[in-house]
């Protein structure tokens, strides 16, 4: 019988990944009001690019830089080519465009890189590390620390800098922001770039963590758990994404440990429905209409 605390500790590392991907959703949602359903597939594409660069024996740090640059580029291009054209369309249309992109990217990744599993090295040692009677690993701690510090940096950038203030102004009312001399479209593009970057970091860190190998559909379930995290925490809230991510990580690990791993998605779905029924804006969200 594995310890209750052990399940929680193990869930935290997965929760950190869900938190990262959910952060990506919420950053984009906060400024544009769009949920990027293609985030998982975009993350997989970034990871595949990292794998290809490593495969050409580029050093790890340089390969990471290239992959992250690719993530920024994917974000910028998605906004410039597709999302800009539907920014005034109904939510329904915007959702379906990102779903179409999900299919395109997943199909393209499948065609370019194939379906055989690939490996990505972890950044820190994944050897078991004893803390009291519980076990974790340097890699798990690294993932959690990275998630928390990324969230912290994003929070400070949004709340304490001129750029963050401008971005919040754009989120509140793009046209008034434009009248105040803010080049709002740049902030929209930037939030897409950073949003995809954060999701890409999550995807890259996820490969060694779950150990099943990198395949085109790897991020499908992660994206669903991250959606759940974003709904639980409240769309558009950075703190909500982090708390929601960790909660979903712990919850799914407890369900997997005590009940059965084949009920994870169903119970998380039930949890979301219950949370939305009691608190439709999520734990940290303000009124769904204002998204500030």
């Amino acid at each position, binding site marked *: 019988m594995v310890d209750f605390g052990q399940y929680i500790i193990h869930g935290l590392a997965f929760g950190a990944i869900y938190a990262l991907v959910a952060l990506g959703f919420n950053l984009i949602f906060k400024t544009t009001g769009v949920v990027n359903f293609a985030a998982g597939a975009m993350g997989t594409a970034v990871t595949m690019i990292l794998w290809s660069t490593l495969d050409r024996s580029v050093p790890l740090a340089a390969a990471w830089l290239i992959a992250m640059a690719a993530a920024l580029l994917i974000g910028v291009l998605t906004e410039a080519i597709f999302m800009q054209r539907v920014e005034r369309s109904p939510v329904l249309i915007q959702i379906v465009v990102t*779903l179409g992109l999900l*299919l395109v990217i997943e*199909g393209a990744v499948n065609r370019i890189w194939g379906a055989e599993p690939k490996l990505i090295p972890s950044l820190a040692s994944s050897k078991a590390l004893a803390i009291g009677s519980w076990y974790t690993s340097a890699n798990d701690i690294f993932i959690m620390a990275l998630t928390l510090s990324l969230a912290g940096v994003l929070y400070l950038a949004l709340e304490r800098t001129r750029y963050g203030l401008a971005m919040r102004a754009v989120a509140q009312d793009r046209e008034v922001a*434009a009248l105040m001399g803010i080049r709002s479209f740049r902030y929209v593009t930037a939030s897409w770039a950073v949003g995809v970057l954060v999701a890409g970091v999550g995807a890259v860190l996820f490969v060694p963590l779950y150990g099943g190998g990198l395949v085109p559909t790897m991020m499908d379930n992660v994206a669903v758990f991250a959606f759940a995290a974003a709904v639980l925490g409240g769309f558009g809230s950075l703190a909500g994404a982090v708390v929601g991510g960790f909660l979903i990580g712990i919850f799914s690990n407890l369900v997997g440990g005590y009940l059965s791993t*084949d009920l994870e998605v169903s119970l998380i779905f039930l949890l979301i429905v219950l949370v939305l029924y009691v608190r439709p804006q999520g734990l940290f969200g303000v009124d769904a209409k204002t998204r500030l």
Partner: protein
Amino acid sequence: MNILLPPGRRLERIGIALLIVVAVIFPKAYGGQDYLISQARLVMIYGLAAVTLNLLVGFGGQISLGHAGLLAIGAYTVPVLGNNYNWPTWALILAAGVTTALVGLVLGLPTGRLRGHYLAITTLGFGLAVPELALSTRVAPLTNGSEGLIVPTPTIGSFTFDSAGHPEAFYYLCLVVVLLCLLAILSLLGSSSGRRFMAVRDSEDAAAAMGINTWLTKVVLFTTSAFFTGIAGALLAFQDGVIAPTTFPFGLSLLFLAIVIMGGMASVWGSIAGALILIVVQVEASNQPGLSDAIIGAVVVLILLLAPDGLAGLARRLWRLAAGLGIPWSAGVGPRLRRQPAAEPPEAGERPPVEVRHGR
């Protein structure tokens, strides 16, 4: 026939009548090519499923990313009841509709309060949860886990519609059921309930101000859509012969959504045409991994960016062009407002009255 064929636009009526005639004589023309007939049945079944999704998305303005989950409920109902209780085929099909409608009702009660992204993610969760539950060891006694269930062969009296021995007979069974469902859906859309769906779609606040109970309308919409989805699921179960959790992946929900977009929102016949085209794409590209996904995704994105009202909108523009050129038969008879269920969807790029340029 006046419900199946929209009055007013004669060219459109001719097109739809032609489609039905082709569907009726298709097995005669391709007799012996069982594979083609099986694909044609799939077009009808997926077409019906897409029309039920269009009820939600196009006519009701409610998004659903878990339609395959509802289809699965209907499909599983058939072998679960058929293998244990020996019900006649028509009762099984009806039971599949009723069971799925009940699930749609339960799903609609909480989700009737949700809008936009929250609704999308909740229905996405539902669509993933249903096959997961069917796979789960806890439900396995009912659904037989990953191996799935063998579906009884449909019969009427002493005649068996087994798809190997009588592929054409089963084709006509599908055709009759699908046409009956379309007839029911079209007349529903022309009724006051249909008008309420569209009023809620166009503006929930305005609909509420007109005295419409928007929550109840949405619950009714979910339940109605689920009923017909369940019937499509029953047909799919008979078509496949074996039903397993892998029959209903998330990709299937996306395919239905793509069909709706391709055919045009709020267009019943557009969804049928969309199903025809996308199933041909899927069959042609099936031996190349990832290709059909990429094509279907690209089609969805391109249509939404370039021609947001899909095939139906394209057809409408062609009619108008034909009428402008004075081509006989194209101009409508009678006023166009008279019973026109397929109301044009709101313009996608609608702009607010006051426009501030922001540098683009």
